[in-house]
């Protein structure tokens, strides 16, 4: 397991706009930086010290060690003030980074892996995909859905035979959501895979329902913004099935067993 969270000053190695409003960001951290696992996140301070106030959490797309640095790759879209401020970051800028935080995906080695990505949620799954392939995990499949073709990213890291794509406007792959495509195709659900999902709440709820209907294990990485990321503020409460207590998404998540979540009581963005 990784060590506890720490505060670092990360150096921006590169930042590139891959599609209008969508950015690929590379950060350099000290070489002894703890291994970040797929699903874990970094909480970055995006603006001036006061406004926006909260850090912004990002699951990592890639973590690798190079001589003299641990390099972390992130992918994000500009959705508000924090990410707008981040879009102005340039090579050499120093970024206040709190991490690694949260839980990671737990590998079910007995089952084929089906990674289900909704939009920017593909980020941690690209990293998980690489690790699974490197470890020689039997079957690994990557189902990737976005609104439109331009929002797909990281496709060059996925073997063609492992990939299915769906876009809501039909501009790439199948038309409709990726969950609909999986239900229609059926083929990828037949060999009893374990599902690993990341994306917006409604997409995760649909994926969880898909898994539940077929009695397949499913881990979801929940999206959210945290005041702290440390379990201190108790703000990121996730309702649990049959339990009065709430789960703290920032420390007991973001990756959790989809069957534990009471999707009916989730806020639904």
């Amino acid at each position, binding site marked *: 397991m990784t060590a*506890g*969270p*720490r*505060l670092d000053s990360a150096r921006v190695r590169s930042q590139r706009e891959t599609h209008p409003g969508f950015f690929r960001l590379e950060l350099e951290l000290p070489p002894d930086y703890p291994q970040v696992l797929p699903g874990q996140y970094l909480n970055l*301070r995006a603006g001036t*010290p*006061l*406004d*926006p*106030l*909260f*850090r912004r959490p990002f699951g990592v797309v890639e973590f690798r060690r190079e001589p003299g640095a641990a390099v972390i790759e992130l992918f994000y879209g500009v959705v508000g003030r924090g990410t707008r401020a981040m879009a102005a970051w340039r090579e050499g800028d120093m970024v*206040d980074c*709190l991490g690694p935080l949260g839980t990671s995906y737990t590998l079910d080695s007995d089952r084929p892996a089906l990674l289900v990505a909704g939009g920017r949620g593909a980020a941690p799954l690209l990293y998980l995909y690489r690790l699974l392939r490197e470890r020689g995990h039997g079957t690994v499949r990557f189902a990737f859905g976005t609104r439109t073709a331009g929002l797909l990213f990281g496709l060059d890291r996925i073997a063609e035979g492992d990939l299915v794509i769906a876009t809501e406007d039909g501009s790439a792959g199948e038309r409709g959501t990726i969950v609909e495509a999986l239900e229609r195709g059926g083929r990828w659900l037949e060999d009893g895979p374990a599902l690993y999902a990341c994306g917006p709440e409604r997409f995760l709820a649909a994926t969880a329902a898909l898994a539940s209907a077929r009695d397949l294990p499913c881990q979801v990485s929940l999206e959210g*913004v945290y*005041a*702290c990321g*440390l*379990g*201190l*503020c*108790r*703000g*990121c*409460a*996730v*309702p649990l099935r049959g339990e*009065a*207590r*709430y789960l703290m998404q920032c420390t007991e998540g973001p990756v959790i067993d989809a069957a534990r979540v009471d999707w009916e*009581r*989730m*806020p639904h963005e």
Partner: protein
Amino acid sequence: MSNPAGPGADLRVIAGGLSLKNPVLVASGTGGYGAELLPLLDPETIGGVVTKTIFAEVRPGNPPVRIAETPAGMLNSIGLEGVGIDRFLAEKLPRMEGMDTRVVVSIGGYGPDDFARLAERLDAVPRCDALELNISCPNVKEGGLDMSTHPRLAAEVVRAVRPVTRKPVWAKLTPNVTRISDVGKACLDAGADGLAAINTLLGMAVDTEHRRPVLRRGVGGLSGPAIRPVALVKCWELLRVLSCDVIGIGGIATTDDALQFLIAGCKAVQVGTAVYVDPGCPAHIAAGVGTYLEANGMERMEDLIGSITVDEEWLLGPRAADEEGGR
């Protein structure tokens, strides 16, 4: 207690009957029960930690959405989620044993008797150095916990607690009143050793996409740098009118913020929301106060606290107690 600033400035203070190695504490609800701050903040580098509010029972808190980011601040309606007194004493407080820092236990309840029972129990617990009475949380549905909106209700809580504990008692006050000094005076008359001010300001945000409140409870408590000037003027009123020990809280994120409250006359300060964003900042603020003392040729905190100069002829706002005819 040791002086963390080293041989230079002496940062020790006595605030509301409690001696502190330096005047910076972590505010209730923002540092867990203390030990959760490790390793990002060493509680021994600060004056103390005010725990998350403890109730007699376990409280699951409010359903999500519980928080919202606002300009230079945040709204919360956590709803006093907590482990309850039994687990607090069995699992949480022991983690603070042996630490050279103060533990102020924040307690809550639905009426004076609830507070008294907790206070009595904690009186026998050596690691509990003082009590902060949370009579001002805006986020609890049952019966309205905002007892500090009314002087009589606030005083009833303090009066119930006072005879059952020898520990210093701080009353934490709401800013959501016209005259905070009326409530503060009632608490002091009932036996409070100090006033902690302020709790959050009532606030609201609307989700314009879905045309509903962002928070499930509709409203919540506003905190963070956005509220600092309001917090400071409420403390100022308490200090001017009541000449009492005030522990300043509200939007403090930097050394300069803390200095403003101390210069105005607060005996100590609590850092809250800023801890979420920068868990190490209370230690930086404590060190920064020491640097300020040295840079200004001050040897001890008494030189700094209340060192503000005002032009009484032109000053607008609350007047000192003696000028109001023996308040």
